[in-house]
């Protein structure tokens, strides 16, 4: 009992605290930029212009955002059940294998059947790979934090084996599958919007972005408006009360981990079906881990997750442009800035809650 729980109004908890965290993180990042002899103001301008200053920039930003929405939601759903799923990478990797197999094996089917089936395959692969750690925790008591991170390694090694030995493209020096048929891929956004008279440059942004937006709404409805979501939140908040209410915590743990894994599978849909059009080694590129920061920053709420995903999308795209324009600010520097934001928004959350709480008191006292 070192400190009383800090209760904040909802708007402050959901809006002000993350904003203050991001501001503090940018301040520290600015100091780093000054430290290497560049102007933080200029760097910020370049970053924002790169991310949001052109149709191309915005498209790239939203492409990254798509990945973060899926992985952020995956972590958020598990959070609500009181589980810390850090296996988004592994679940997306398995989902990627499922997608690739579906796209390659079901190629004779017309696109209108093939695409939904491949998306379902991704969800099923992620769900299966999330379910196993959930099952292990529910029946054997093996903690998901431990199992999911170990499962990441298993998935990575499995995908190397498959790509090199089984489904790899014959004759290729790279570990990759053959390219999917044209009708097996997701429509790029610039093609999707062309009939509407919108001319967009060709970017990786594709219709998976719409799927991600739909996932935000679906997760909101699941968590806050459905009986299953109610059961998930009950287990997460008080497992004893759940048992008393006749909700089986073991069952909910398995279900929540499967849903979480299925959402992580969305990363494979975007990357494999929407961008690469074939399965590449390590396509997950750490998006699964950043999803943890996205979920933390978004307070596990789909609206928050969407906004946090957008912020990280801006950072990724703007950061890439920044390191291109300013060679002294390397890609690694941008990773540092992202890391600082994760540190402030996730780990040091309590610090700013206190500051915001006393600020509010000061404000209301006047």
């Amino acid at each position, binding site marked *: 009992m070192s400190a*009383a729980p800090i*209760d904040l109004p909802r708007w402050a908890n959901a809006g002000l605290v993350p904003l203050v965290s991001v501001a503090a993180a940018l301040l520290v990042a600015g100091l780093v930029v000054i430290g290497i002899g560049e102007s933080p103001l200029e760097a910020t301008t370049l970053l924002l212009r790169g991310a949001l200053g052109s149709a191309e920039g915005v498209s790239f930003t939203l492409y990254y955002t798509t990945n973060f929405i899926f992985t952020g939601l995956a972590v958020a759903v598990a959070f609500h059940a009181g589980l810390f799923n850090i296996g988004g990478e592994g679940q997306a990797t398995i989902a990627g294998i499922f997608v690739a197999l579906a796209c390659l094996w079901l190629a004779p089917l017309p696109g209108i059947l093939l695409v939904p089936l491949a998306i379902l395959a991704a969800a099923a692969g992620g769900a299966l790979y999330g379910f196993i750690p959930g099952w292990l925790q529910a029946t054997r008591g093996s903690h998901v934090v431990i199992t999911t991170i170990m499962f990441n390694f298993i998935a990575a090694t499995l995908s190397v084996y498959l790509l090199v030995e089984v489904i790899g493209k014959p004759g290729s020096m790279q570990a990759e599958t053959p390219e999917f048929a044209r009708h097996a891929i997701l429509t790029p956004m610039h093609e999707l919007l062309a009939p509407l008279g919108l001319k967009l440059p060709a970017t990786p942004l594709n219709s998976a972005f719409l799927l991600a937006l739909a996932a935000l709404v679906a997760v909101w*409805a699941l968590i806050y408006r459905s009986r299953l979501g109610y059961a998930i939140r009950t287990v997460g908040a*008080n497992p004893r009360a759940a048992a008393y*209410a006749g909700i089986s915590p073991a069952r909910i743990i398995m279900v929540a981990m499967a849903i979480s894994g299925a959402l992580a599978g969305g990363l494979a849909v975007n990357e494999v079906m929407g961008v690469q059009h074939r399965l590449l080694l390590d396509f997950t590129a750490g998006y699964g881990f950043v999803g943890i920061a996205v979920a933390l920053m978004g307070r596990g709420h789909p609206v928050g997750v969407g906004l946090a995903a957008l912020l990280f999308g801006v950072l990724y795209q703007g950061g890439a442009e920044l390191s291109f324009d300013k060679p002294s600010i390397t890609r690694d520097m941008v990773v540092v800035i992202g890391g600082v934001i994760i540190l402030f928004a996730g780990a040091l959350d309590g610090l700013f809650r206190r500051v915001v709480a006393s600020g509010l008191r000061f404000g209301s006292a006047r």
Partner: protein
Amino acid sequence: MTEPPRSAVKPAPAIELIGISKRFGPVQANKDVALKVAAGSIHGIVGENGAGKSTLMSILYGFYEADSGEIRVSGTARKIRAPGEAIAAGIGMVHQHFMLVETLSVVENVVLGAEGGAWLKGGLARARAELARLSQEYGLVIDPDAIVGDLSVGLQQRVEILKALYRGADILILDEPTAVLTPPEANQLFCLLRALKAQGKTVILITHKLREIMNVTDRVSVMRRGEMVAHVKTAETSPATLAEAMVGRRVLLRVEKAPRQPGPAVLEIAGLSYVDGRDCETLKDVSLTLHAGEIVGIAGVAGNGQSELLEALAGLIQPSRGVIRFNGQILNAAERNPARLRKLGLMHIPEDRQKAGLVTAFSAAENAILGYHDDPAFGPGPFLSHAAIEAHARAAFAAYDVRPPDPALKTAKFSGGNQQKIVLAREIERAPKVLLVGQPTRGVDIGAIEFIHRRLIALRDAGVAILLVSVELEEVMALSDRILAMCGGRITGERAAETADERDLGLLMAGVSEAA
């Protein structure tokens, strides 16, 4: 020169609160509260659930900061923003739920947070010496090397008091200290409080038991709906007057009930045993029959198998042996799960509402459907309708006088009694056939106790079979038609309520078997 000579003024009160106000969202928990606690006295604070006693003490101890108002400790204005500052001002608090590390020894718990340096050895030696002194001064006998988890609840409370004294507390706040104590332990506590007072310490006692107030305090302050409504000398008041001041109307301190009209047997238990995770047989061959329209009370000191009996009947634990019949049908293992039993009409008000009966992080409306969230009335198909849930809660809270009647408020923000009313409303309104009730009025005060008791009697008169477990013997005797005494996991005897007397039951509870 302007200051009057010291001897001319009365000694400053140990605690003086002036105009304390605190608001939680729409709830005004404390409204312009004033309180003077004379140094070296025992001061009682009573009030109904949600009257604002706990909030006021939390402000005094630095858990919350008041929106406005002033705190003076021994005449000096102090800002108390954190418990550390309260401790520095000489204020100690003994919480209703102990803040102890059960795996550490008494002396280690006492120095916790006041180790006095990076090396434990010196601090422990100092603490040991200080403990010996305190023990002698106040008659607080305790083995400093005993592991806290092995101590009885009464002794654990003693450790809490020692902790506060070790930190130099001159003013001790006790929040519902007797809620977890047996009657003899409570009497020992009162002796201790008198000893503390004799040594010049100031004690603030928060309780809902008027008998204790009359027994041990010098002055009493009564709170109602966030305001102080009376300050009186204990010697000049009576329990009835205090109860009236608390509730704002006359209250019945006794339970009135008509003679029972028992119906057919609803729940029959034969040879029920349970072996817990530590291979300890906590239920031994328990048999009992519960008829429609009667209240069967289980009398026993906490930890003698009553909790396991309730949990086994509610489907939360699986008995190792024995048969449970519901309306003549044997319940098999698959049917003995909480969801199925609820559908059959076996409802359960759990002993520990905060840990088992509620999700305190949820809104009150969400808790009002816990266990019934599959009911189609609450939304179409797999979805829940917020409007339906809130309307349901609004109606239930009005019927059960839950205060504040705000379905959107977080459940943790309700007082203990109002949380209990939320649970009660949820389980009773479903027309149970059998109601299992654990500690219905633990930490609940007079106005609400009266309400809860009347509800239980009304249910019995409507033909519900009620099994009541309570550590308050008075409550068991007042409500039950038949009383079973439990000791060591066994039923040691049965008495009809009319003929039962406290001494006789006490012997049964202690395991002295019936004279044949």
